[in-house]
């Protein structure tokens, strides 16, 4: 097994670069002559925009331009698009409001971009921003999802009565009704999936330059894939062929879905660069990120499950109210609907499932995909419901799950939501997980904690995630002049370790030394198409593309070797990076062969070179799944919670690099724990101001909040791709919120507490205990 082999915990090849500060992020790059942009944002949640006076701002020394929505309209700049239009239950289309890059006549959340100021320095632009006089007619605002549909609630958009963007449904409604009618027991639970501020370490940034000779832009920006940005820039914004944009994505410090989308500031940098004939750069401040990065989650969901008398799960019915924010972000309506509902049946043999999803506008930052994008929300609901049902019918929560799990002999299994699970052995994973944490011995730990005045609880969640994303992916393998093998990919790392995993796959296929492989990403000029990274798709999508492309390289190599070695192609064998004539010691190394062929081709000889590019069809999703088990201790007097133990048993199919998967799971668990216990996005109900607008007020998880997390794998190879892998990037964040909340409820259930909403802050836990004791 080589150092870079598959299944090896290869150290991340990108880390020396990133950890030593040698990475190059968007903001690290400043082109000569760069001008700096600052966005002036609405301080109001809902207001008419009456007038904007820019003369004083333009007079500030160093200011180059002040642009408003009117300027952009006059220049024919299109609105920021939403790529999704859902059908309502009544067959009509969803309401899609306009989202101008800069507000034209109204603002719909605090932070809506109102003007773009460009100056010689950021400081001058900031000073000028203070000099822009905007006259607003302040309107009543609504930021609370729970009351946004109430009669009399302020209207975010005149065209959306009761603030409803869409009212969508999916599933077997009639059959579900039938099964509920004959159920022995029905469990109902309403859960809140709290709004998350994504908070990537690297803030968003954009730097654009425009070449008037060619009419082309080069946009450097931190994305999860520049190709979508390029398409939208051309097709939706500037009304030019998308190829007029070259989007370069430098190193990216975290995305979590939030950096998939086209944002106003990217458009503004491009617009200003063309207007001014200079590179224009914008970098978000942390406080701006709170007001302008798409947010995550934010649902209130009623779930109901019907069970028969033996504890068999019959049917699931949900009504989910999902916050869209003040405008529709690129994929916003897709997240709680198509993305989220797909996994509602999870690993259980429900006979029928029905989901109604209502998208609702509020005067808040637009919501879109965040690590898991809809699937964490669905898994949270289902795993909370099952715990609640077990308690209600007096059945052990593990037994209720085990009894209803789809068995391996049913694979491939088509769920009531139409998802085809290729593989999975849920009971094996469950049993391994329980054994690992000594589930059976928990009561002794609960009793020991009680002696210390602490309430200890254990919670389990079995999650199923459906990965997603673009249906094709491209790879190109080029043998470079300097002896390296360059692999051009259409995905985009934001820190996950792609550079390492792709090297491992390439080494596995081509037998070249890992040190000789370079992964190239993030330039839409050198890589014509790419699906970007999102939906945990990268390894299995790009992996398949690398496989197919490597196959072509080997075929071409065989032909080339037959030319060089003067043997029939059929007699050439390829092994460990070497083409040789079968049964002889005559052969040639693949890198040497590629170099020789390239040299001959350069002299005009008609020979086969080894470079190749292929596009792979990604026919199927993957369904990573696993069991998370959390143990918490709560101080009932203060509500303080400690996560004392956390254990994950995952089926991510084949783990190409177990160390990287563990890292991904650790990060996901931390994020899920943050959502479950710490992260509260608070708006002031009167003014619509974001109260939790900085890290002083918005509680991100930190290392000292978490115990050491153990992650083990039970590999059930994926059958829908030749690598056998399942996407692991999001899974940690899918399993952890329900595991943690189930543990909290378990700790407090002796007091009669049956549910606690996220985030389970000390105050909320203390309140739950106080209320239960008073009752």
């Amino acid at each position, binding site marked *: 097994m080589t150092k870079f082999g598959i299944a090896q915990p290869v150290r991340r090849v990108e880390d020396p670069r990133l950890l030593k500060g040698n990475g190059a992020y968007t903001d690290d790059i400043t082109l000569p002559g760069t001008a700096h942009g600052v966005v002036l944002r609405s301080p109001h949640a809902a207001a008419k925009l009456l007038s904007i006076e820019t003369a004083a701002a333009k007079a500030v020394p160093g200011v180059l331009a002040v642009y408003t929505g009117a300027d952009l309209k006059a220049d024919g700049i299109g609105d920021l698009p939403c790529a999704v239009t859902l059908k309502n239950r009544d067959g009509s289309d969803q309401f899609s409001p306009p989202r101008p890059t800069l507000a034209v006549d109204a603002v719909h959340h605090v932070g809506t971009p109102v003007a773009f100021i460009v100056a010689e320095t950021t400081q001058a632009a900031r000073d000028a921003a203070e000099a822009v006089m905007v006259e607003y007619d302040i309107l009543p605002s609504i930021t609370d999802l729970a009351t946004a549909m109430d009669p009399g609630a302020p209207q975010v958009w005149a065209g959306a009565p009761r603030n409803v963007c869409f009212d969508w449904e999916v599933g077997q409604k009639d059959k579900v009704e039938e099964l509920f009618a004959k159920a022995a027991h029905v469990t109902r639970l309403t859960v809140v999936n709290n709004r998350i501020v994504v908070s990537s370490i690297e803030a968003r940034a954009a730097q654009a330059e425009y070449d008037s000779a060619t009419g082309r832009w080069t946009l450097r920006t931190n994305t999860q894939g520049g190709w979508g940005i390029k398409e939208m820039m051309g097709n939706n914004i500037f009304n030019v062929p998308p190829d007029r944009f070259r989007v370069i994505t430098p190193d990216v410090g975290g995305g979590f879905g939030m950096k998939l989308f086209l944002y106003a500031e990217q458009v503004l940098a491009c617009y200003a660069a063309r207007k001014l004939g200079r590179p224009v750069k914008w970098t978000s401040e942390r406080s701006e990120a709170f007001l302008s990065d798409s947010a995550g989650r934010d649902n209130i969901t009623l779930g109901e499950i019907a069970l028969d008398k033996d504890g068999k799960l019959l049917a699931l019915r949900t009504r989910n109210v999902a916050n869209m924010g003040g405008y529709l972000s690129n994929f916003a309506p897709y997240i709680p609907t198509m993305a989220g509902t797909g996994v509602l049946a999870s690993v259980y043999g429900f006979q029928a499932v029905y989901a109604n999803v209502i998208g609702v506008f509020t005067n808040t930052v637009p919501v879109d995909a965040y690590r898991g994008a809809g699937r964490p929300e669905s898994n949270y609901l289902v795993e909370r419901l099952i715990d609640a049902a077990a308690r209600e019918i007096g059945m052990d929560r593990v037994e209720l799950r085990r009894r209803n799990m789809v068995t391996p002999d049913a694979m491939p299994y088509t769920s009531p939501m139409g998802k085809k699970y290729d593989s999975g052995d849920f009971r094996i994973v469950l049993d391994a997980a329980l054994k690992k944490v000594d589930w059976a011995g928990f009561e002794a730990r609960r009793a020991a904690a009680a002696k210390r005045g602490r309430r200890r609880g254990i919670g389990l969640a079995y999650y199923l995630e459906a990965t997603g994303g673009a249906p094709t992916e491209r790879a190109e393998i080029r043998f470079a002049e300097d002896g390296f093998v360059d692999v051009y990919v259409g995905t985009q790392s934001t820190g996950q370790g792609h550079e390492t995993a792709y090297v491992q796959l390439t080494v596995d296929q081509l037998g070249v030394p890992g040190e000789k492989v370079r992964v190239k990403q993030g330039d839409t000029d050198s890589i014509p198409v790419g699906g970007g990274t999102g939906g945990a798709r990268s390894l299995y999508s790009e992996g398949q593309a690398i496989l197919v492309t490597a196959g072509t390289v080997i075929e071409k190599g065989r032909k080339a070797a037959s030319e060089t070695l003067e043997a029939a192609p059929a007699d050439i064998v390829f092994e460990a990076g070497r083409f040789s004539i079968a049964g002889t010691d005559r052969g040639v190394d693949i890198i040497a062969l590629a170099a020789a062929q390239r040299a001959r081709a350069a002299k005009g000889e008609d020979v086969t070179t080894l470079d190749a590019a292929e596009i792979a069809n990604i026919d199927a999703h993957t369904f990573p799944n696993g069991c998370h088990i959390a143990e918490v201790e709560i101080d009932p*007097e203060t509500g*303080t919670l400690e996560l004392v133990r956390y254990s994950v048993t995952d089926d991510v199919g084949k783990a190409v690099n177990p160390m990287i998967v563990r890292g991904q799971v650790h990060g996901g668990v931390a994020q899920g724990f943050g959502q479950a216990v710490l992260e509260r996005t608070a708006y002031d109900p009167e003014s619509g101001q974001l109260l939790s607008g900085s890290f002083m007020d918005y*509680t991100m998880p930190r290392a000292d909040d978490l115990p050491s997390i153990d992650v083990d794998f039970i590999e059930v190879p994926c059958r829908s791709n030749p690598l056998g892998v399942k996407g692991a990037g999001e899974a940690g964040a899918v399993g952890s919120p329900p595991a943690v909340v189930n543990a909290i409820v378990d700790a407090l259930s002796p007091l009669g507490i049956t549910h606690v909403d996220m985030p389970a802050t000390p*105050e909320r836990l203390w*309140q739950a205990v106080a209320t239960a004791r008073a009752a």
Partner: protein
Amino acid sequence: MTDIRYLAPRTLDEAVGAFAASQGAARILAGGTDLLVQMRNGAVRPGTIIDIKKITELTSIEEAADGGFRIGAAVSGAALAEHPRFGRVWPGVLEAVNLIGSTQVQGRASPGGNLCNASPAGDSVPALVAAGAVVTVQGPKGRRQVAVEAVPAGPGRTNLGPGEIVVSFTLPPRPEGSGDAYLRMTPRTEMDIAVVGVGVSLTLRDGVVAAARVGLGAVAPTVLLVADAARALIGSRLDEAAVHAAAAACRAACNPIDDKRGTIAYRTRVAGVLLQRAVAIAAERAGRV
């Protein structure tokens, strides 16, 4: 940005002189962990900064012959922690000072800055109030001494006169059988603003409380000395009734705000809980068996 003048006088007289002469346009700089943050976000824009860390009296720790301590106002949390004796005599004060910020912040942050920043949630203040610390202040009109609890006037405001600088804290000699403790409640374990902070100092004689002081933070516009809580403890053997009465006094003293960090009900309730726990720790340190 306008230019800022930076002065680092070596004597207190120079510092007071410059501070008074600035007529309110200057700011004292101790560790800067509040001041520099406030300057960066534009909350304060001083014309002159007067760094007091070059003045020996403000950066030294002295143990008097009678066992009392004098701590310079600009002594950092880290320096206080390294003092061989201070933490043994005043473990509660030390843990309160050391709760401020992270390791990095500890290298700079001072109790004087914590007090003069006048946040109702300043961590060292309730412990210093409980300790009965007296503050030495020097200004254009000379030196004066005031109780710690008399310095804060409201959030971000002090009762210091124009040109006055806090020089040091004097902690009284510690009788046999004394102990102190500070506990705070934050929404998270570290690096956060307290929603309640409680400092307790006790002296026990034959199991009976001979002296007690209680300081309460983050539940009113200023840190409070809760005399009623101390009264409930004094003369008791720290039996349940006495401790409950003290907790009730703490709750009664609370006049907190309702905000995203904590509701009034929660802060009030937790104030009582922390009082009970801080009393238990202080009593143990005082040698209760």
